[in-house]
């Protein structure tokens, strides 16, 4: 990304206050939400690319439930970022959970173990990366929390435990956590806790929705970014909400305010 003109998403993500770059180094929790009609996977790709910029030394731990490595590699290559090379350079760790965590169906114990091993792997990776010299942010990305729930056989308690563990990594190592989930799944009351907790822990919530007027070829949907800002300023809440349209292309995404696209 040439930083000459940050796009609307970047602008919305920047925290208020001076030296925003410095603050950003501290870990943040980003929750991306989408629905059946509009996928928000491109936001993940955006974060992935931003973290793996050549001039930084940030590290991404990617936990894939939805798509295999080849899928992401191809997409990111079109965006100008070679994941295979980054993987070799120890900046990108890809944990393929598509089949790997194939749960056996004989009770809940195995499930917990599966998530525990996964967390163990993440923690180990984070420890190793943070022990290396140089200042770097480690970003943990989960590409589909709802599929993780399926892998845990619907035990939202285990899921919440897992997410809280990941959250502690933020405090301990300054990790960022980026998760993608599907908002429309959580419409009934007994499934709500997971998404509510996620949203509560989040510093930034990004929602992708289809246009109310239906499908259009030049506007793919709208993005609502809720940036809760830094919690250090007591008193006034400096959370801000931005709302804009987007159009996804192969190598980047256009963001624009409604009606401003020529």
């Amino acid at each position, binding site marked *: 990304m040439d930083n000459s003109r940050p796009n609307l998403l970047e602008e919305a993500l920047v925290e208020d206050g001076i030296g925003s770059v410095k603050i950003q180094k501290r870990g943040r929790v980003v929750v991306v939400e989408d629905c*059946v*009609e*509009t*996928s928000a*996977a*491109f936001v993940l*790709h955006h974060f992935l690319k931003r973290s793996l910029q050549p001039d930084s030394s940030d590290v991404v731990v990617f936990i894939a439930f939805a*798509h*295999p490595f*080849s*899928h992401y590699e*191809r*997409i990111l290559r079109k965006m100008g970022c070679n994941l295979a090379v980054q993987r070799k350079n120890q900046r990108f760790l890809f944990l393929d959970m*598509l*089949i790997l965590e*194939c*749960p056996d*169906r004989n009770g809940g114990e195995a499930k917990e173990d599966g998530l525990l091993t996964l967390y163990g792997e993440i923690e180990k990776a984070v420890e190793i990366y943070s022990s290396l010299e140089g200042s770097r942010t480690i970003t943990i990305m989960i590409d589909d929390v*709802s*599929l993780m729930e*399926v*892998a845990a*056989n*619907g035990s939202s308690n285990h899921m919440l435990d897992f997410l809280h563990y990941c959250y502690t990594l933020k405090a301990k190592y300054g990790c960022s956590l980026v998760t993608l989930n*599907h908002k*429309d*799944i*959580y*419409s*009934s009351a007994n*499934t709500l806790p997971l998404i509510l907790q996620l949203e509560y822990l989040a510093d930034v919530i990004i929602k992708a929705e289809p246009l109310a007027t239906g*499908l*259009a*070829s030049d506007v*793919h949907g709208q993005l609502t970014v809720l940036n809760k800002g830094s919690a250090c300023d007591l008193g006034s809440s400096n959370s801000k909400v931005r709302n804009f349209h987007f159009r*996804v*292309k*192969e190598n980047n995404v256009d963001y624009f305010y409604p009606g401003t696209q020529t």
Partner: protein
Amino acid sequence: MASSRPRGSSFSRNISSAATSQIPGVKLGPNGTSFLSSGIPDLDQILGGGFTLGSLVMVMEDPEAPHHMLLLRNFMSQGLVHKQPLLYASPERDPRGFLGTLPSPMASKDEKPHERPAEQDSNLRIAWQYKKYLGEQNSEVQRGGKAEYCNDFDVRKPLERHFYSGQRVDCISLRDSPNLVPLLERCAAFSSQISKSDGNITCAGRIAIQSLCSPQCDFSDKDWDMLSFIRTLKGMIRSSGAVAVISFPPSLVSPTFLKRWQHLADTLISVKAIPDEDKELAKLLTGYQDMLGLLSVHKVARINTQVPAILEATTFSIKLRKRRALILECLNQAPVDGSSGSSYGTSSSCSGSSKTGNLDF
């Protein structure tokens, strides 16, 4: 066999891609994906080439009408015609019996002249812009030499026995088992058979699962088990050269789980029957009499790309051409009542249907 050839050529990209397209019934698509035909030429066109290899297609059934069976039948027949391995699971006691109801491809002798009648059709109804448009597209497909990629199927003629007797056709009844483990094992065995060897697909396979959550199955109340099965199946076929089509009655899945199912699907299609004597709908849509039902495309598989597919239309009418071949057409609003257009509309569609009647009987 053709399947041994691509294995030998591992050195050149050009040759390997040529070899891939030599696999019967597989077409190369954008972003390094390949397509399998759905067995309905129009549906292939709508989806941009067919079902993406390695994708999971979910069909939401109509609770009252078996329209999903039309899709499944054509999908399976097309695979058998291409000699692709097939795995079929259904809640019926005797799933193999279903193979006897598969439609047979129209003979090539039949197929050549059908081009001309189609043109005549469009000439006759030339006043309808969309007809012209569709006719052009059809001929384009045929000119592209993809005639054998996707056959037209005659829904009235059963598939000849030799198509499915000698081949790798696996049938499972979902009724016998208390859980999904046996089905998953069969799927795993199936997809390991046809798995890609270092990116080169040697053979494409089709998995068709009918009415996954129907109440005849013992596991139909285990929501999480079914989700987990779909997820695992999706992971399995993604790394192999197979397409899985699962049909399910959405009314039997609770709303939140329905959303989960929909998210799991790479390609999501729903079919709906149309009520026989819906006067209002008949007034709204032209060609209402010929319609079998409606088909909506909710999601198109996006593998290796982040750009969403925006279709020109998402709902299509299912019709039978000459009472044989399944076709999909864009919906067209009938001219508003009261103008001279309405009488024109009825006369035209009358002449159309009477003409097809003449041809067939």
